[in-house]
C-alpha cells in the first residue's frame, strides 16, 4: 500500500478539465453551445440593432439621416401616429390574435372530439378514420387555404373567379366566408386538429384505466366520470395543445397571405413582410421582435402548465383495457359522418388541385375546357403563361424541385444528426447548467415565427460583412437547419430518455468505444425514433414557404417559392400543379420511410 496520504481536497482543476473533456457528451454540448450562440443569439442582436438604426431607401429619404445612424423614429411611427399605428400595427395584431385563438379552439374541438371517439368509444372503422384524419397535418397548411379558395371563390368576391361550389351548385358564398379571418381560422384549425388529436388521443390512450375504473366502482355515472376525472386529467394536455396551435396560428404567414390578400386583411406576419418590402424595415423588425416576445410568453405559460401537472399523465403498463362507450344507434351515423368529413378534407384537396391544374378557363369544369398542357405541354402548345412549357417538361420547375429536395435532404441530415447528438448529450448530462443551456438554445428558434426568423437572417445577410451569404443555397440550408432544430432536438431528447443509461454503461464496462456504442447499441434501439427525427425536417423543408420567400435569390429558385410566385402572378393552373406535386412528394416520402422502417411523421393512435 502506498504511504502517500490522499488529500480531502477536490481534484486539481487541470484534472477536472481533463475528466470533463474525456466525456463525449461534454464535448458535444460545448460544440453546440458555441454554434447555437452564434446561430440563434447573434441574429437576435442584429435584429435588435436594426430596430434602432436607419436603413437605406425609403427610411433614408424620409428621415434625412445617414444610413446606420441611431434613431427612435421607427417606434414613434409605429406607435405614436394613431392612424398609421391602427392600420399597420393594432389591427393586424388583433387579427393575428383572433386567428390564433379561433384556430386553437377549433383545432382542440375537432381533434379532441375525434380523439375521444377513437380511444373511448366503439366507433366503427377506427383504423381508417385515424389514418385519414391525420392527412391534413401532413399537407402544408397553405394547400388547405388554396383548396378553400378553389372550392368557394365565386363571381361576386375577390377576383371574380368561379370556384367548384358555384360552378356545380350555383351557390355563391358571401365574402366573409371565402376570404378573411373566418376561413383563416377554419383552415388553420383544421390543419392543426390532427395535431390535437395525436396529443390528446395519446394521453387518453395511455391514461391509466384504473383511474376511471375506480370511479366506476364508486358508482359514478359515465358523464360524471368524463367531467370529473377524464377532462381534468387531460386538461393540461388540452391547454398545452391550445397554446401550441395558438402560437403556430399567430406565426402563420402563408395562410393569411392566400386568404387575406383579396380583402386586404392583414395579420402581424403578413404586415411585417409588407412593411419590409415597402421599405419600412425598422418597423418590420420591431414587429418581428414583438412576435418573438409573444412566442416566448406563450411557451412560458405552456411550460408552467405542463411542468407542474405533468405527473397527471403517467403512463402505466396496465392501460388499454378501458371499457368502450357503446354508441348504440348513433354509431353508424357518427362513423359515417366522420368518414365523409375526413375524406372531404383529405381527398378533396387532391382532387381539387388536380382539376384546377387541367382547366384552361377558370371556373369551367367541362371536359372540353381541360388540357394537360400545364403539366406536359411543350413550347408550341404553351399558352400565354409566363412559362415556356408544362411543369413536367420544364427546366425551371425541375431545377426548383431538385434544389428543394437537395435542400431538404441536406437540412435533414444536418438537423437529424444534430438533434440526436443534442438529445444524447443533454440526457446524459441532465441536471447540469450546460445541458440546460444547450437544450433551451436549441429550442429557442421555435419561439420565432418563420417570417420573423427569415427577417432576422435577411438582416444578417444584407449587412456589409455577410453580403456573400445573401441569396446563397448555404444560407437557405443554414436558416432551415436552425429553424427546424427544435423539433429534432426535442425528439432526440425524448428518444434518448427512453434508454436507461445502464444500457450504454453495460457496453462501457466492456470497453466499447463511444462511436461503437452509438452505432451498435443506441442507434439500433431507437432506430424508428431517429429516422423520424430525420424525416420530419425533410417534410418541413419540402413544404416551407414563409421562411424561404425572403431569402431566395429569385422567386422561382425553389418549388415552394415558385408556387407562391405563380399564385401572386395569377398562373393558378401552374400553382395547382406544383401544389399537387408537393403533396404527392411529401406523402410518398412518408409512406416510403414508413414501409422501410415503421417510422412515421405522424404516429397513429387509432385502432
Amino acid at each position, binding site marked *: 500500500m502506498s504511504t502517500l496520504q*490522499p488529500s480531502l481536497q*477536490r481534484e486539481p482543476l487541470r484534472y477536472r478539465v481533463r475528466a470533463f473533456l474525456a466525456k463525449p457528451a461534454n464535448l458535444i454540448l460545448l460544440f453546440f453551445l458555441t454554434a447555437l450562440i452564434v446561430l440563434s443569439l447573434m441574429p437576435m442582436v442584429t435584429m435588435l440593432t436594426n430596430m434602432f438604426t436607419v436603413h437605406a431607401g425609403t427610411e433614408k429619404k424620409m428621415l434625412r439621416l445617414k444610413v446606420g445612424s441611431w434613431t427612435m423614429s421607427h417606434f414613434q411611427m409605429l406607435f405614436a401616429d394613431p392612424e398609421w399605428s391602427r392600420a399597420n400595427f393594432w389591427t393586424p395584431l388583433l387579427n393575428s390574435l383572433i386567428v390564433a385563438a379561433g384556430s386553437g379552439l377549433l383545432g382542440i374541438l375537432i381533434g379532441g372530439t375525434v380523439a375521444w371517439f377513437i380511444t373511448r368509444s366503439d366507433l366503427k372503422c377506427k383504423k381508417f378514420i385515424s389514418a385519414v384524419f391525420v392527412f391534413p397535418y401532413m399537407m402544408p397548411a397553405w394547400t388547405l387555404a388554396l383548396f378553400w379558395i378553389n372550392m368557394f371563390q365565386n363571381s361576386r368576391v375577390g377576383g371574380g373567379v368561379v370556384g367548384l361550389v358555384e360552378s356545380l351548385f350555383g351557390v355563391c358564398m358571401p365574402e366573409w366566408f371565402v376570404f378573411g379571418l373566418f376561413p383563416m381560422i377554419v383552415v388553420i384549425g383544421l390543419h392543426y386538429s390532427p395535431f390535437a388529436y395525436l396529443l390528446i388521443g395519446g394521453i387518453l390512450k395511455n391514461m391509466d384505466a384504473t383511474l376511471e375504473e375506480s370511479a366506476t366502482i364508486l358508482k359514478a355515472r359515465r358523464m360524471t366520470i368524463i367531467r370529473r376525472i377524464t377532462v381534468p386529467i387531460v386538461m393540461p394536455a388540452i391547454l398545452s395543445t391550445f397554446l401550441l396551435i395558438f402560437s403556430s396560428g399567430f406565426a402563420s404567414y402563408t395562410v393569411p397571405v392566400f386568404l387575406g390578400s383579396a380583402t386586404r386583411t392583414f395579420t402581424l406576419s403578413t404586415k411585417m413582410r409588407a412593411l419590409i418590402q415597402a421599405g419600412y424595415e425598422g418597423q418590420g423588425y420591431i414587429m418581428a421582435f414583438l412576435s418573438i416576445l409573444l412566442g416566448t410568453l406563450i411557451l412560458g405559460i405552456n411550460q408552467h402548465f405542463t411542468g407542474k401537472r405533468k405527473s397527471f399523465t403517467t403512463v402505466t403498463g396496465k392501460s388499454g383495457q378501458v371499457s368502450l362507450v357503446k354508441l348504440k344507434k348513433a354509431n353508424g351515423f357518427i362513423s359515417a359522418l366522420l368518414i365523409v368529413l375526413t375524406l372531404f378534407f383529405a381527398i378533396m384537396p387532391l382532387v381539387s388541385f388536380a382539376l384546377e391544374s387541367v382547366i384552361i378557363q377558370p371556373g369551367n369544369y367541362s371536359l372540353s375546357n381541360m388540357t394537360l398542357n400545364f403539366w406536359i405541354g411543350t413550347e408550341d402548345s404553351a399558352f400565354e403563361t409566363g412559362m415556356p412549357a408544362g411543369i413536367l417538361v420544364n427546366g425551371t420547375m425541375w431545377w426548383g424541385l431538385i434544389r428543394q429536395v437537395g435542400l431538404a435532404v441536406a437540412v435533414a441530415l444536418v438537423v437529424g444528426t444534430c438533434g440526436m447528438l443534442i438529445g444524447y448529450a443533454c440526457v446524459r448530462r441532465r441536471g447540469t447548467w450546460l445541458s440546460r443551456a444547450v437544450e433551451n438554445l436549441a429550442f429557442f428558434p421555435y419561439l420565432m415565427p418563420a417570417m420573423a426568423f427569415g427577417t432576422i437572417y435577411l438582416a444578417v445577410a444584407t449587412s456589409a460583412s455577410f453580403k456573400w451569404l445573401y441569396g446563397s443555397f448555404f444560407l437557405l440550408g443554414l436558416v432551415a437547419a436552425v429553424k427546424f432544430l427544435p423539433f429534432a432536438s426535442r425528439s432526440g431528447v425524448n428518444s434518448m430518455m427512453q434508454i436507461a443509461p445502464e444500457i450504454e454503461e453495460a457496453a462501457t*464496462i466492456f470497453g466499447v468505444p463511444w462511436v461503437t456504442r452509438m452505432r451498435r447499441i443506441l442507434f439500433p*434501439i431507437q432506430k424508428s425514433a431517429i429516422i423520424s427525427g430525420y424525416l420530419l425536417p425533410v417534410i418541413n423543408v419540402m413544404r416551407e414557404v414563409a421562411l424561404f420567400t425572403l431569402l431566395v435569390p429569385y422567386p422561382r429558385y425553389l418549388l415552394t417559392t415558385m408556387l407562391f410566385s405563380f399564385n401572386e402572378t395569377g398562373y393558378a393552373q401552374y400553382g395547382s400543379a406544383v401544389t399537387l406535386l408537393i403533396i404527392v412528394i411529401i406523402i410518398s416520402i412518408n409512406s416510403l420511410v414508413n414501409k422501410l422502417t415503421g417510422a412515421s411523421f405522424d404516429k397513429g393512435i387509432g385502432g
Partner: protein
Amino acid sequence: MPQIILEHISKRFEKFTAVEDLNLEISDRGFVTLLGPSGCGKTTTLRMIAGLETPTSGRILIDGTPVYDSDRGINLPPNRRDIGFLFQNYALWPHMTVEQNISFGLEMLKWDRTRIRARVQEMLELLKIEQFGKRYPSELSGGQQQRVAIARTLAPSPRVLFMDEPLSNLDAKLRGEMRTELKRLHSETNSTFVYVTHDQLEAMTLSTKVCLMETGVLQQYAPPLEIYNRPANQFVASFVGNPTMNFIPAWAEQKDPKTLQVRMLDTAVTFEADAPFTLPEQEIIAGIRPEFLPIREGGALKASIYSTLPAGMETTVKAHCRGTLLTSVVFGSVDYAVDEEVFLDITGNSIVLFGGTDHRTFASGRMRFGEK
C-alpha cells in the same frame, strides 16, 4: 488477486454529499455487501469503484494499482479495471439475442470467433439457459433475463463482479432461488463480489462482510453476524434484523466495571457485560432482539397482546408492556387473543446497550431480573 481499497473517497454533487470520506478495504475473493436505506450512497460507491462515476476526491486501488487518484489525476475507464457489472434493471440490449448479448463484450475484447462461441455455450450452460440462446430479451421472463445478464457479465471472466440490487426486480420465490445461485457462482468463479442491496436479509445470507451506510457515511463494516449481534450503533441495530430490535428506554447505574443496575419498564434488571466498560450517561437505551424476549410462564414482564402475526415457522407477537409496545418472536404457530395477558422473559447473551443521547453501543451482554 484483487483487493479493493478505498481511501478517503468523497462524492459531492452540486448541492449534497453522496459519500463522505469513505475508507474501505475489500479483501480478495470476498463477498462484500454495501447495505443501507435508499439514498445512502451505496450505489454511488459501487459506481465509483467500477469507474462509472468519478469521485470528487480520494483514491481507489484495485489489486494495488490506483484506478482513481484525485491528487495525481488518475482515472482509469471501467474497461481497464477488469470488472464486471450487473445492473438492477439488467440493461440487456433489446435488439440483440441472448447469444449476441453475451458475445458482444467478447467481440469488443477481440476474442477470436471459436473461442467466443465456446465461451457463450459455457455461459449458457452455467446459468442453465441453453434453450434461450436465439431469443430476444423481451421474450424472456424476469428470472431468465436476470440469468442472461449474469451470463453476459461473467463471460469475460472479470476478477471483480459488481452487482447493483440485482434481485430487487424479482418476485420473492425467484429471489430466494437466485440468492442460492449467486452464492454458488461466487465459490465457482473465484472472483471478488461487491453487492449493493437495501435488503438486510440478502446482505445477511450472502456476504462474508457487510458495509452498512447511512447518508453517505459508513456506519459499520463487519461480518454479518457481528453486525447482527454487536451493532455499532442504534441505526445499525434497527436496520438489521426482522422483526426489528426492541429499543427500551432505561435508567442505569454502574455497580462495577462489568455490571449495571438497570431500571426499565418499571422493573429492576441487572446487566452483566462481556467486557469491562464505563457508563457514558445514566439515560440509556436497551436493545433487545425479539427472539430474546420469549413469552413464557414465569416471565417477569406482564404484557397484554396487541396483535399476533403467525408466519408458520415462527410467530411475531406484539404486546403492550407498561406503555411500551414490545415485539417478541415465538417458535411455531401460536395464536393469542387480542388483549390476552402474557408474561415476557429476557434471555440471550447479545443484549446491546446504547447511549441515550449519542445512540452508540457501549456494552453488550446478558440481563436478568432483580438486583445484584
